């Protein structure tokens, strides 16, 4: 790393500096590994214990008997694959809706500037001031019986997808980015006779990749981590998300099965994370403050 930080390179160059650096570094490596990987080890190991050993006092660090059937039982009982598929379906559906509708809205507000655009933007931003938890109850009642359409969205993906579009923060991020695209670029396209849609597709979107990445991560992570809302709107066990499924499971299976389930639920996360870590990291640091 070339940038100069808090500690001067000169200090680090000295013997004492080196000793302190490596000591601290070693301690931090050890501590962080324990604190952040330790729990995962615990999960894997305790998922293998028998019901009786699980609650033994004092706890055992290495299981005495290996019970892999905890994993198979948990898999069967919670219908794990189904839960995972549900969650991905909701998450990527929400992503698609947000990418289409929010990008279009931000583009319109930024570049097409319709009448009342300012007012609409203001009203959208105003929703950022309402704590999400406050809206849960009226939103839930709305989903039960959507006005005008008279539809009950309970137990349908719409209950996740449509409310996810009302993400004013993403619209704000997108609009701010679009604002920074020079007018001349768009005017050039427009003089060539391109429609607004075509301009959006062939001029705006290609240069907006970084911000689209950020918005996508927020959209997917938002659904992946949500608990209260899917718990309320997807009560049908066959439609639940992973989070809610685990929670349901927690009520009615032995502790060792549940722990096996927790371990299994963490595996896809870790895989996704390892594969996409570069994108996730850069997205987060670039997009700033939400996550």
């Amino acid at each position, binding site marked *: 790393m070339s940038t100069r930080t808090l500690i001067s390179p000169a200090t680090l160059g000295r013997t004492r500096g080196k000793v302190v650096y490596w000591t*601290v570094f070693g301690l931090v490596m050890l501590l962080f590994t324990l604190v952040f990987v330790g729990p995962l080890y615990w999960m894997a190991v305790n998922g293998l214990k028998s019901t009786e050993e699980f609650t033994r006092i004092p706890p055992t660090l290495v299981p005495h008997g290996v019970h892999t059937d905890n994993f198979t039982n948990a898999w069967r009982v919670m219908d794990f694959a189904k839960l995972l598929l549900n969650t991905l379906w909701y998450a990527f559906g929400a992503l698609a809706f947000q990418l289409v509708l929010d990008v279009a809205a931000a583009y319109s507000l930024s570049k097409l500037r319709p009448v009342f655009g300012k007012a609409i933007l203001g009203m959208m931003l105003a929703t950022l001031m309402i704590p999400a938890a406050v809206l849960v109850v009226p939103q839930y009642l709305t989903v039960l019986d959507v006005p005008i359409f008279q539809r009950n969205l309970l137990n349908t993906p719409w209950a996740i997808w449509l409310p996810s579009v009302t993400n004013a923060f993403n619209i704000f991020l997108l609009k701010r980015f679009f604002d920074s695209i020079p007018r001349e670029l768009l005017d050039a396209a427009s003089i060539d006779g391109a429609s607004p849609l075509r301009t959006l597709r062939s001029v705006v979107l290609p240069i907006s990749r970084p911000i689209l990445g950020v918005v996508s991560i927020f959209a997917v992570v938002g659904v992946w981590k949500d608990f209260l809302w899917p718990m309320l709107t997807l009560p049908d066990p066959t439609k639940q998300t992973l989070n809610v499924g685990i929670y349901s499971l927690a009520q009615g299976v032995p502790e060792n099965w549940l722990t096996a389930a927790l371990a299994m639920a963490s595996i896809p996360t870790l895989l996704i994370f390892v594969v996409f870590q570069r994108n996730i990291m850069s997205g987060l*640091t670039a997009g700033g403050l939400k996550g």
Partner: protein
Amino acid sequence: MSASTLPTREATRPHPGAELPRQSGFARALRRNLTAHGFLIGAVLCFAFFSWYPMVREFLLAFQKTKDGRTTWAGWSNLSYVFHDPAFWQAWRNTLLFTGLALVLGFVLPFLVAVLLNEFRHGQGYLRLLVYLPVMLPPVASVLLFKYFYDPGYGLFNRVFELLGLPAQQWLQSTDTAMLSVVIAATWMNMGSATLVYLAALQGIPGELYEAAELDGAGLLRKIWHVTVPQTRLVLSLMFLMQIIATMQVFTEPFLLTNGAGPEGSTTTVVYLIYQYAFNFNNYGGAAALGLCLLVLLAGFSAAYVRLSRDSDG
């Protein structure tokens, strides 16, 4: 700072419509507006149904009541009901305690970790990965994991304490430590994203500032206080506000760790109380009234946050 990689906003923004040729006329303006609103309509409808309408409904609900199938205006009775609920003040005290503890742990700790990690010339990628790992786990899995760790009998934490020769704790089982335990779990789960944001901000600090401070004879702490903190002030204040807004709405962690209320109600939070009203007591009016209180309290913080993040790229 937060938007350091985003292009900056255009310096001059043309007045809407100013660049339109004069001869375009009414028809063209109409067409342009129709197209623009066509792009907007999807999002606007979603907002209308799932955000604006519920907002209005929240206010209406707070002043209505439903009994034997009839909905009537209730005046202030829902609010007074909520105010007279003995759990009301307790829930507020608990929520503020949670927010306070979460600021100490969840706001300060990630900053210190970020400052520390930023100094490392090795293994930074690995450490960043570790800190961020819990953020990606399904939160319910993490919380349930901590629930096992906290068990005073077979739990891991008391076992570790025992090995270290420390007295066993009751963790979630005592009014003294229940909320603290919830905060520790919440911090483990969430500190990763804050740490990464701080790291990004720290990397934007020009090295010369530290050099200058050193010339003035500043020690480590003074450098942090006089260079690092002021240089990351914007990010810090944004994270501060966000932390308050988020933690005041805490639900999942206490709900799963202590089955909601905790010992003598010591982890009952405002949002858990809203949940109880709406979904256990079938009292939507009370839930809405309670929500209104939370809204009023948080609106100021939210407004400051929106304002600050709007200016953050200026």
